[in-house]
């Protein structure tokens, strides 16, 4: 697969206070806490995030791994500006979100779904579709342009959602379990394609996943989180050359370290 993104809009010449590119495309989360009023009978509130600090430099791929309930989705919604933190601060450029559920619109064809963000940015329909079509070919979706979402397999739907995210034209990509519904083979292909694409046109990526191996294959840095309340246990630098094979001994070693940081199975289940 020849990877080319070509999805970013022309750089806008907006001046920003202290506005280096670096500042604008980095993601900076400082001491962020977020608590939800509980809906359960006990009436206890749920603390989704407790004093979480994370940083992704410009064009860095930051993976966030952790078991369910560790506030990963809340973290992404905070970065995308869909929620505000109770305390702490978040600094980052506008971010595009690829949600865990693909959220394709059932009334639009696959191609129109992928082109949705462009349409909302007032790109003409034909132009928006043409740009989505190029990425369809690269992601093995050619021939499915006019299919409705319910006619696509789970893996195809996720790829369409991925194209939609890329075409949102944001500097930062927030990916929430983007390859979760894919079979192992397609997932490996998507990993290779994404690494390749990011090498060609770097972006700042925050990748939420429960798959430690996926995190190490794709990311520059891996933040390991624990649940209830969601907090960062440790961070792992992955300074390995790309492309990375999942059987590469260095990848395997890092995976063991990451799993170790998550605690023993006994500890994890006790939490």
């Amino acid at each position, binding site marked *: 697969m020849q990877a080319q993104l070509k999805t970013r809009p022309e750089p806008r010449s907006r001046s920003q206070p202290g506005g280096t590119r670096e500042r604008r495309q980095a993601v900076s989360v400082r001491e962020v806490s977020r608590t939800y009023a509980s809906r359960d009978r006990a009436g206890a509130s749920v603390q989704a995030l407790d004093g979480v600090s994370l940083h992704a430099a410009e064009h860095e791929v930051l993976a966030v791994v952790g078991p369910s309930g560790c506030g990963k989705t809340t973290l992404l919604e905070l970065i*995308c500006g869909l929620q505000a933190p109770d305390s702490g601060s978040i600094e980052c450029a506008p971010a595009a*979100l690829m949600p865990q559920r693909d959220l394709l619109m059932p009334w639009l064809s696959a191609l129109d779904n992928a082109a949705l963000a462009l349409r*909302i*940015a007032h790109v003409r329909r034909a132009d928006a579709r043409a740009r989505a079509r190029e990425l369809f070919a690269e992601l093995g979706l050619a021939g499915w342009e006019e299919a409705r979402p*319910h006619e696509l397999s789970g893996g195809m739907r996720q790829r369409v959602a991925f194209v939609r995210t890329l075409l949102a034209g944001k500097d930062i990509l927030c990916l929430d379990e983007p390859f979760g519904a894919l079979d192992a083979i397609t997932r490996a292909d998507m990993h290779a394609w994404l690494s390749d694409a990011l090498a060609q046109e770097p972006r700042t990526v925050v990748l939420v996943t429960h798959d430690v191996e996926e995190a190490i294959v794709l990311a520059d840095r891996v933040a390991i989180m624990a649940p209830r309340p969601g907090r960062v246990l440790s961070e792992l630098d992955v300074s390995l050359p790309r492309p990375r094979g999942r059987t590469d001994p260095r990848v395997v070693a890092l995976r063991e370290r990451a799993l170790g940081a998550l605690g023993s199975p006994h500890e994890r289940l006790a939490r």
Partner: protein
Amino acid sequence: MTRRARNALPAIALALVLVGAWEVYVDSGGVQPLVLPAPHEVATAAWENAGLLAHNLRPTAEEVVLGVALALAAGLALAIAIHMSGPLRRAVYPLAVGSQAVPIAVIAALLIYWWGFGIVPKLAVVTLICFFPVLVTTVDGLASVDEEQLKLLRTMDASRWQTLRFAELPAALPAAISGARIALTVAVIGAYIAESQTATTGPYPGLGHEINADLTALQTPRAYAAAAVLFALAIACFYTLALLERRVAPWAHRPRGEHR
């Protein structure tokens, strides 16, 4: 035979059985033909009065189709306005519900007093009776949009109107069409009420008026024939809309067993 034709077979068979039972009952002397004409008499009356019935069908069909169209336009517009404005919702909704509590026959009589014998008061009655189901189903439909989809659109910086256009309206369409389907069936009732409340001038006052006049003149077979035409009109409207729905909102019509 197409699948649709095969699907229609049981309904046709049941209708034939019912009509057959009716024929046998009347022929066996169970009831006076003046009170309940046999189906063959009704058919003869329909055949002999085909021109009259066709001419009377026209104003009634106009009232139904135009009234439903007006109700759709007004219902959709008001539903969107209510959906987008809380104060408007609180102002309009109670009145819209209240308008349904007033017997439609009363409203028809009052409107005719006001607007005379033309098509206008009849249209108003049909519109009024059809408007409510369209309004309620569309308001519900607009609110049924997936919250997560709205979040996604927010990350794309969609404006209020774009959110409406790309998510809420399409999400509401199947519900709005259901509302239209209810509206069509009650439209025929509305047209009948409006016509029977009206002293209409002219030779072809509409099917509702025709039925009442025939019954008064003891022309029972012709009254039944006119009622059958009214019945056919309602069914034709209903299925036209069902066909339309398949074109306008095909995603709402997946073959069974394909839900993911």
